[in-house]
């Protein structure tokens, strides 16, 4: 399908690109980072940016947990507390997890499919460079008279329509994030469909590539819907429309439908690439091919399809018609089937493998165990009848944090440790990596497990104060939160050490069991990944079913 990309000097007679070929990185900082069209540099920008956002969003979480440490109002005003929960979520979702995955996509996809770079390199630069401006605008609202947005990341009207000055800034920031995501996704799809080395058929692609292909499709399908939803909020607020105003014939619940039509696929946008990363790591350290490769691909596709028809499970309590409740309940439960297939396949991959437990593997196994807990509490929430009790309680908070923190974030950590030696050409400190893992894995459970009980006992979410019966579990949870937060500093330490100090160089293969094209390149890989397309040899691929 694709045409080989051979690079040679004679090819470039155009005046604009005479010098910097092959392995010369641009020398000036501006050229290297601001004007770059290189997938690796852009990947690095995304990853650094998302780490920064992870800490900004994380500090807000620390404020929240500090306030909830004890009953009563201790540290912050209720309105500021609400700003913290809202901003924390917006920043973690749109600023930390999503850009981190785009960073991985940038770094890894061209290497994994044997391409010289991303398909649309200039647009790649723009996708990234919109983000710092978008988040600067979003964060700036905290310094306005009105303070930041405080109606929750879901921006439900009528509450969100009562926001002051900050509102329009938030809406436009969301627009910018959407534009960035859509461009990034278009790039990913074009790269995967058009830039694969000859012989890299679709069903030979690594699972990380597959999951990102499907994620990109989800992003292009739902980000415009979010853009439309916030645009309607904007016009309701400033231009007198009545989309969400019953007096004018609209309906606030309509916003929820539109928002969750975006929102549920959005949660899969954050988790599908995680599935991909874990599916890369487990075979490497179990020294066995991935069990059920094609089942994994089909499961991912089914999850993506189902994610479009389950959105109203977030709205069981709004007074939907009974048929609606039932439909969304059963459809939601159906998602557990392909998800179960995945968990089963990861476990089977490890079954009788000769396993070792380096940091990436630890995080990947942590992911499998803890993500599954989140999936199971999701199933509980999916039962419409009992969700009337659980909805908007800490049980929901526990659920989505299990899927997002030891789910998506652990997979990000796993991927970072896994590919860090490839990216930098040096080994990170295994000792500190392991300390980071164990502290995180233990504290994340201290942090989130008690929240299940709080929710079942009736503690509502998004409140700065609570009844004294909830005191014990909240204190435990906060302690877990502080340990978890502090442990993440170790991660920064490990990265900085690896990049600047580590003296232990990495081989091209890095991990003895690693398979896939990225490992046949040197560590660090050349500035332009595959100038000539590699020869695809089935035995170098990570999965067993190459017989297609």
């Amino acid at each position, binding site marked *: 399908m694709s045409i080989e990309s051979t690079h040679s000097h004679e090819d470039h007679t155009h005046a604009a690109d005479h010098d910097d070929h092959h392995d010369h990185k641009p020398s000036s900082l501006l050229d290297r980072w601001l004007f770059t069209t290189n997938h690796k540099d852009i990947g690095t920008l995304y990853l650094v940016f998302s780490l920064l956002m992870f800490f900004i969003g994380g500090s807000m979480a620390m404020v929240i947990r500090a306030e909830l440490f004890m009953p009563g109002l201790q540290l912050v005003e209720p309105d500021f507390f609400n700003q913290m929960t809202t901003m924390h979520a917006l920043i973690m979702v749109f600023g930390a997890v999503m850009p981190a995955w785009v960073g991985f996509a940038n770094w890894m996809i061209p290497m994994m499919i044997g391409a010289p770079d991303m398909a649309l390199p200039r647009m790649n630069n723009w996708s990234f460079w919109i983000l710092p401006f978008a988040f600067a605008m979003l964060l700036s609202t905290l310094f306005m008279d009105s303070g930041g947005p405080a109606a929750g990341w879901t921006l439900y009207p009528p509450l969100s329509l009562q926001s002051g000055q900050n509102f329009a800034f938030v809406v436009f920031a969301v627009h910018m994030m959407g534009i960035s995501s859509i461009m990034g996704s278009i790039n990913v799809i074009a790269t995967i469909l058009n830039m694969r080395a000859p012989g890299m058929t679709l069903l030979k692609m690594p699972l990380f590539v597959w999951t990102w292909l499907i994620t990109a499709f989800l992003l292009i399908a739902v980000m415009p819907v979010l853009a439309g939803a916030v645009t309607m909020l904007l016009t309701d607020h400033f231009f007198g*429309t009545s989309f969400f105003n019953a007096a004018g014939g609209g309906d606030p619940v309509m916003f929820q439908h539109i928002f969750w039509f975006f929102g549920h696929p959005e949660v899969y946008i954050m988790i599908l690439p995680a599935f991909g990363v874990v599916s890369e790591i487990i075979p490497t350290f179990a020294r066995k091919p991935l069990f059920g490769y094609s089942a994994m691909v089909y499961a991912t596709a089914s999850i993506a399809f189902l994610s479009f028809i389950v959105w109203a499970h977030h709205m069981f309590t709004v007074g939907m018609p009974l048929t609606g409740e039932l439909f969304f309940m059963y459809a939601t439960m159906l998602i557990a089937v392909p998800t179960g297939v995945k968990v089963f396949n990861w476990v089977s991959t490890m079954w009788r493998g000769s396993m070792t437990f380096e940091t990436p593997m630890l995080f990947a196994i942590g992911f499998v165990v803890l993500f599954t807990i989140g999936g199971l509490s999701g199933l509980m929430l999916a039962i419409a009848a009992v969700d009337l009790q659980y909805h908007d309680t800490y049980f929901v908070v526990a659920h989505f944090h299990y899927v997002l923190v030891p789910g998506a974030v652990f997979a990000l950590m796993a991927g970072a440790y896994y590919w860090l030696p490839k990216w930098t050409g040096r080994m990170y400190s295994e000792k500190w990596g392991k300390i980071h893992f164990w502290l995180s894995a233990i504290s994340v459970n201290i942090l989130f497990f008690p929240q299940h009980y709080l929710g079942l006992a009736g503690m509502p979410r998004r409140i700065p104060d609570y009844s004294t019966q909830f005191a014990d579990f909240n204190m435990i949870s906060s302690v877990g939160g502080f340990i978890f937060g502090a442990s993440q500093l170790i991660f920064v330490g490990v990265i900085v050490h690896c990049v600047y100090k580590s003296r232990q160089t990495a081989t091209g293969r890095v991990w003895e069991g690693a398979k896939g094209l990225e490992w046949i390149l040197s560590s660090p890989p050349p500035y332009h990944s595959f100038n000539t397309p590699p020869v695809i040899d089935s035995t170098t691929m990570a999965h067993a079913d190459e017989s297609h």
Partner: protein
Amino acid sequence: MAHIADDTYYVPHGTKWPIIGSLGMITMLSSAAFWVNGSEIAPWSFLLGALILIYMMFGWFGEVIRESEAGMYNDQVDTSFRMGMMWFIFSEVMFFACFFGALFYARMFSVAWLGGEGTGALTNELLWQGYEAVWPTAGPEGLGGDFKTVPAFGVPFINTLILLFSGLTVTLAHHALKKNERGRLVFWLFATVVLGFFFVFLQVEEYIEAYQHLGLTLGSGIYGSTFFMLTGFHGMHVTLGAIMLLVIAIRSMRGHFKPDHHFGFEAVAWYWHFVDVVWLGLFIFVYVY
């Protein structure tokens, strides 16, 4: 083409346009936010941002066009561009789907429920007793006052014919290009541009009529909201599409595009057909039905 790089995927080295685009975008959007909050200088900085964006587009597209005309793009690069455009149009489809969804939801559910159907009985009884669900409506409180709707078989029907006809003219232009009949190419392209702008002109007239004589405004409850949101965004897309066609027409006059290599032309033609199809949806669900 001067096949310089037939077997090489062209990867540009460095570009300043995206960061200029980001600066334009943030200037424009933050100004828009200040503007709706009542700032008096914001309209000017908004304009500045828009100008920066326009400058960026000229620069960026200009560079791409020069590279393309210099034959630096092989078929694989061409395919990337095609995929890019197709998925971009898909994202636009979803954007409109959102507003159509709002229209259908309002008509099928929210208005009916306010009228007491289904689960809405109590709302109707307690809040808006006697409100009868009809379409069009400005809601139980008749926000924005009485209004009349734009008759479908007046200007909107003419506009439908115009857009359908413009779909034909752009296809004729495409055929001419493939046969390398440059004169006819330019002629049909300009015909399409004229039709496009004529559509916009009639749409503006329709809006003036709606505001001044029909009492139909953006504030006319859910009907006015969906009507202006859908037709307004569509009108913006037609305007943009017509400008894109104009650029393509001018490029054609300058001898750009080859019978077998004219992605820019096709991208704009796809976009134009997309705008056309959206209009058919609008005509049926907003005006007629």
